[in-house]
C-alpha cells in the first residue's frame, strides 16, 4: 500500500514540526541557553509546541484515511497523551518542587506508552504473514533477546532506583517506564525478527522511534537517579525527534505483502545472530551483578534459537515428505483412473510382449482378472485382420511417428465374434533417459456403434431400393401413358389431319370460300398435335432403350428444335450408366434443358458427360441470362429444382446449380455407378472404411 496522501495542512504541520525541532536542537547547543535574551520558558514552549504538532500530524491520519484507522488511532492517541503529559509537566509539575510521584504528567506519559503498545500490537497482527512454527519461534527469539538485553542494560539503573529510602511511589513510577519500554522493545523486536528485517518504511520508522523512546527513558531514568539531569541536555531533542518520527511513520508506505522469510538455512542467519547476542548478554551478566531474570531471558532466547534451527532443518525434510506424499497421491489417483475405466488399456514392450492390461481391458477380451499377461504377446489378442493391420500399419507408424489412431478388431478369448475397437496406440519414452521405452494402447469397444452403423446402412439400402422402385414405377406409368397417347390420341389427330386434307381438296373444287375455315381447323389440329408431341416427349424415355449420350442428344434435339440455340453433346466415349440410374439422370438433364429453353435466353448450350469419382458427371452449361432460384418451374408433371435434387439423391448422387464462368448457368449432376454403392464395413480394408458420403465429397472436388 503506498503512502497515504497527506494534505497541505499535514505538510505544513511537518514543516513547523521540523522547524521546532531544529530550533529546539539549537537551544541545546552549549552556550545558547546561557546567552542573554534566552527565556527559560522557550524551552518549555518549544517542546510543548513540538509535541502538540507531532500529535496533531499523527491524528490527521486516522481522521482522514479510513485504512487501519484503529491502529493509527491508537498511535495518534499515544502521541497526544505524550503531548498532554508535557503540557501538564510544563504548566504545572515543573514548578512543583519537589516532583510528586506519580504526577499527572507521569500518568499521561505512561498511558502514552501503553497506547503505543496497543498500536504496535495491532500492527503486529496486521503485518504478520501466515503463521508457521519458524515465524513464531523467530518472534519469540527476538522478544526474548530484546528483553534479556534490556534487563541487563537497565539493571544497574533499576538497582539504583530501588535503593532503600526512596518513596514507594517514586520507585514504582520509575520502574514502570523501563518495564513498558521493555515490553515495547520485545514486541518491536519480535516483529522485526519475524519479518527477517524486511519491513515497510512505516514499521521501520515506528521501530526506530520506539527504540529512541526506550533509549531516552533509560538515560533519563539513570540521570534522574544519579541526579545529574538538567534541562537542555541532548535528550530532550532526541525525545522530540523520536516522537516526530513516530508521527511521520503514519504517513509512510505500509507494505502489505506478506513476504515469506527465506526458507532453508539462509533464514537461520538472523536467529543465529540473535542467539549470539543472548550468549553475549549471559557472559556480560556473568561478569557483573545482574538479576536472575536477565540470565533466564537470555537462556530462553538461546533455547528459542536452537528450536528455530531444529524446526528449519527438519522442516525441509517435512516439506520433502509432503511433496512425496503428494506425488504418491497423484500416482494412486492415476492408477485408480486406469483401473476403473471400461476402456481397454494395455502396455507392451517393443518386442510385443505384454507388460500390463487394465481390468477393463481384461473384461473386454474375456481375460481372467488375475491372469498373468506378461506371458502373452500382442498377437494373442488380435484377430487375423487386426494382426495384419498391426504388422503392416500400426507398428511401423508408431515407430515412425510415435502414434497411430484408427480402428481394428480384438479377438474375443471366450470364443465370441471379433470385437471392433477404436484404437489409439502411442509410444512412451522413458522418463529418465528419454529413449523409446514402451508401447501403450487405449481402445474403445465399438460393437454398439458398428451395429448401429450397419442398421443405418441397411435402412439406407432399403430406402434406396424403395425409392428406386418408386422411380421405376413412375417411369413405367409414364411409358404406359405415353404408349396410350401414342397409340390413340396422336393417331386420331393424324387421321383427322388426313381427312381435313381430303376435305380441303374437295372444298378447293366445290366451295372455295370454305378454304379459310378448313385451314383454320387444320391449324387447331396442328396445335393439338404439337402439344401431344410435347407430352410424348415428356413421358417417353429413350434412356430406357439407348445409351446415355444418345438419349440426351435426342432430348436436346427435341427441346431445342425450334429455337435459335446451338447445342452440342460432348461425351467421353463409352461412358454410360445402368438403366435405372440412366433413366433418372435423363429425366433430370431433360428438365435442366427445358429450363434453359424457357428461362435462359441462351444462344449456346453444351452438355458434357464425364466419368468422375466412380460415377458419371453431366453438366449442362448455357451462356444465357443466369439462374434465379426463385423462379422455379412448377408445372404439373415437371420436376422443378427440388424435384431434380430429390431424384439425384434417390440415385445416390447430387445436383449443383450455379452460375457458369462468363455468365449463364451451369447445372451439374453427379450419380454413382454401382461399384461406388454403400455397403463396405469398417475393417474390410486397412485404414478407415469409405461410404457414399466420402465419394460424394470427393466428387465435389474436396
Amino acid at each position, binding site marked *: 500500500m503506498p503512502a497515504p496522501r497527506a494534505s497541505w495542512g499535514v505538510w505544513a504541520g511537518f514543516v513547523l514540526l521540523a522547524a521546532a525541532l531544529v530550533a529546539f536542537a539549537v537551544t541545546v547547543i552549549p552556550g545558547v541557553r546561557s546567552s542573554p535574551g534566552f527565556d527559560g520558558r522557550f524551552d518549555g514552549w518549544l517542546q510543548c509546541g513540538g509535541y502538540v504538532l507531532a500529535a496533531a500530524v499523527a491524528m490527521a491520519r486516522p481522521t482522514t484515511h479510513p485504512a487501519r484507522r484503529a491502529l493509527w488511532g491508537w498511535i495518534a492517541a499515544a502521541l497526544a497523551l505524550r503531548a498532554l503529559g508535557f503540557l501538564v509537566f510544563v504548566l504545572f509539575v515543573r514548578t512543583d518542587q519537589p516532583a510528586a510521584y506519580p504526577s499527572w504528567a507521569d500518568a499521561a506519559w505512561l498511558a502514552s506508552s501503553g497506547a503505543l503498545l496497543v498500536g504496535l500490537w495491532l500492527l503486529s497482527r496486521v503485518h504478520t504473514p501466515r503463521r508457521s512454527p519458524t515465524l513464531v519461534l523467530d518472534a519469540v527469539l527476538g522478544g526474548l533477546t530484546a528483553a534479556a538485553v534490556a534487563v541487563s542494560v537497565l539493571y544497574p539503573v533499576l538497582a539504583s532506583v530501588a535503593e532503600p529510602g526512596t518513596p514507594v511511589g517514586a520507585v514504582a513510577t520509575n520502574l514502570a517506564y523501563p518495564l513498558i519500554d521493555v515490553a515495547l522493545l520485545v514486541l518491536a523486536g519480535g516483529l522485526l525478527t519475524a519479518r527477517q528485517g524486511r519491513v515497510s518504511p512505516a514499521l521501520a520508522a515506528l521501530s526506530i522511534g520506539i527504540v529512541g523512546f526506550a533509549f531516552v527513558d533509560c538515560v533519563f531514568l539513570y540521570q534522574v537517579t544519579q541526579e545529574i539531569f538538567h534541562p537542555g541536555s541532548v535528550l530532550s531533542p532526541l525525545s522530540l525527534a523520536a516522537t516526530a518520527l513516530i508521527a511521520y511513520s503514519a504517513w509512510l508506505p505500509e507494505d502489505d505483502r506478506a513476504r515469506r522469510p527465506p526458507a532453508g538455512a539462509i533464514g537461520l542467519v538472523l536467529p543465529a545472530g540473535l542467539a549470539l547476542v543472548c550468549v553475549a548478554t549471559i557472559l556480560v551478566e556473568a561478569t557483573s551483578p545482574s538479576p536472575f531474570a536477565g540470565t533466564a531471558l537470555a537462556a530462553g532466547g538461546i533455547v528459542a534459537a536452537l528450536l528455530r534451527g531444529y524446526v528449519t532443518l527438519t522442516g525441509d525434510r517435512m516439506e520433502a515428505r509432503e511433496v512425496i506424499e503428494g506425488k504418491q497421491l497423484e500416482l494412486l489417483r492415476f492408477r485408480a483412473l486406469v483401473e476403473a475405466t471400461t476402456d481397454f488399456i494395455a502396455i507392451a514392450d517393443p518386442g510385443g510382449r505384454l507388460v500390463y492390461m487394465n481390468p477393463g481391458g481384461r473384461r473386454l477380451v474375456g481375460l481372467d482378472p488375475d491372469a498373468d499377461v506378461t506371458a502373452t504377446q500382442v498377437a494373442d489378442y488380435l484377430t487375423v485382420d487386426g494382426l495384419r493391420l498391426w504388422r503392416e500399419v500400426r507398428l511401423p507408424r508408431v515407430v515412425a511417428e510415435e502414434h497411430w489412431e484408427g480402428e481394428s478388431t480384438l479377438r474375443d478369448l471366450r470364443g465370441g465374434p471379433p470385437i471392433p475397437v477404436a484404437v489409439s496406440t502411442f509410444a512412451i519414452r522413458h522418463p529418465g533417459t528419454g529413449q523409446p521405452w514402451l508401447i501403450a494402447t487405449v481402445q474403445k469397444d465399438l460393437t454398439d456403434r458398428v451395429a448401429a452403423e450397419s442398421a443405418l446402412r441397411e435402412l439406407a439400402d432399403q430406402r434406396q431400393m424403395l425409392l428406386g422402385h418408386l422411380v421405376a414405377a413412375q417411369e413405367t406409368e409414364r411409358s404406359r401413358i405415353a*404408349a396410350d397417347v*401414342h*397409340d*390413340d390420341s*396422336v*393417331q*386420331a*389427330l*393424324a*387421321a*383427322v*389431319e*388426313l*381427312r381435313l*386434307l*381430303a376435305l380441303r*381438296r374437295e372444298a378447293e373444287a366445290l366451295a372455295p370460300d370454305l378454304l379459310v375455315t378448313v385451314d383454320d381447323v387444320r391449324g387447331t389440329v396442328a396445335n393439338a*398435335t*404439337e402439344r*401431344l*408431341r410435347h407430352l*410424348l*416427349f415428356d413421358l*417417353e424415355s*429413350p434412356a430406357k*432403350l*439407348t445409351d446415355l449420350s*444418345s438419349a440426351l*442428344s*435426342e432430348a436436346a*434435339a427435341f427441346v431445342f*428444335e425450334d429455337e435459335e440455340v446451338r447445342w452440342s453433346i460432348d461425351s467421353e466415349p463409352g461412358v454410360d450408366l445402368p438403366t435405372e440410374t440412366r433413366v433418372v439422370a435423363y429425366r433430370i438433364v431433360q428438365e435442366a434443358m427445358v429450363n434453359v429453353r424457357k428461362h435462359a435466353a441462351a444462344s449456346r448450350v453444351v452438355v458434357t458427360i464425364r466419368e468422375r469419382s466412380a460415377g458419371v458427371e453431366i453438366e449442362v452449361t448455357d451462356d444465357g441470362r443466369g439462374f434465379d432460384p426463385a423462379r422455379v418451374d412448377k408445372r404439373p408433371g415437371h420436376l422443378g429444382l427440388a424435384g431434380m435434387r430429390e431424384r439425384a439423391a434417390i440415385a445416390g448422387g447430387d445436383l449443383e446449380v450455379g452460375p457458369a464462368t462468363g455468365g449463364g448457368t451451369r447445372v451439374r449432376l453427379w450419380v454413382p455407378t454401382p461399384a461406388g454403392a454403400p455397403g463396405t464395413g469398417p475393417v474390410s480394408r486397412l485404414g478407415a472404411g469409405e461410404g457414399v458420403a466420402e465419394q460424394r465429397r470427393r466428387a465435389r472436388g474436396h
Partner: protein
Amino acid sequence: MEPTNSIRVLIVDDHEVLASSLAKALEAEPDLLAVGVAGTLERAAALIRTTAPDVLLLDHRLPDGDGVAAIGRLRELRPSMAIIVLTASPSEHLMVSAVEAGVSGFLSKTRSLGEVTSAVRAAAVGEAVISPEMLARLLPRLGGSGRVGAAALTDREREILGLIAHGLSNAAIAEQLVVSVNTVRNHVANLLGKLGARSKLEALSIAIREGLLPDR
C-alpha cells in the same frame, strides 16, 4: 424400279381410324392404290403375300411386335418392296435400327403425314424418304453395327453418295451433275449393290461406317 400403272400400297397400322384415313388419302390419288390394311404383323405378312404391294406403310408399334424389328422378315417376303416407317415420335435409335434394316424412310405421324402421297411415290422409285433435319440428326449415328464391307466405289459413285447424304433426290442429283436421271438411277443401283444395301438410307449407313463419305 419401274412405276407400274398404280403404285400398290399396303398399310400396316393398328389404329383403325388412322389406317382408313391413310387409305382414303391414297385413293384420292389416281396413281396410287391402297391394296389393304393390316392391323398386325401377321396379317401384314399374309397380305404381303397375297397383294404384292410396292410400298409398305409400316407403323413401328404393333400389337404383336415391334414393326422395326420385323422389317427384315417382311422384306424377305417381297424384297422389291419399299418400306416407310410411320412413327409419332421419331427417335434416333429407332431410326438407326430401321435404316440398318433397310427402310426407305420415315414419316412422322405428328408432322409429315400430309406428305404421305409424295412419300409413297418417292419410295416407289427408290428415293429416300426423310426430312433434311432428320437426316442431319441421323447421319452421325449411322455406322454402328458390324456388317459386310463394301467393294471399292468409283469416284462418280462416291460423289453421288455425298449428294444423297445431303438429302438430294435422284432428280436433284441429275440436275447437279448435269446428267440424265436414268444415269443417276443406274449409279444408285450399282451403289446399292456394291454396298449390299437395300435402300439409299441403308447405303448411307454403310458408307458412313466404312468411312466412304467425304468428310463428315
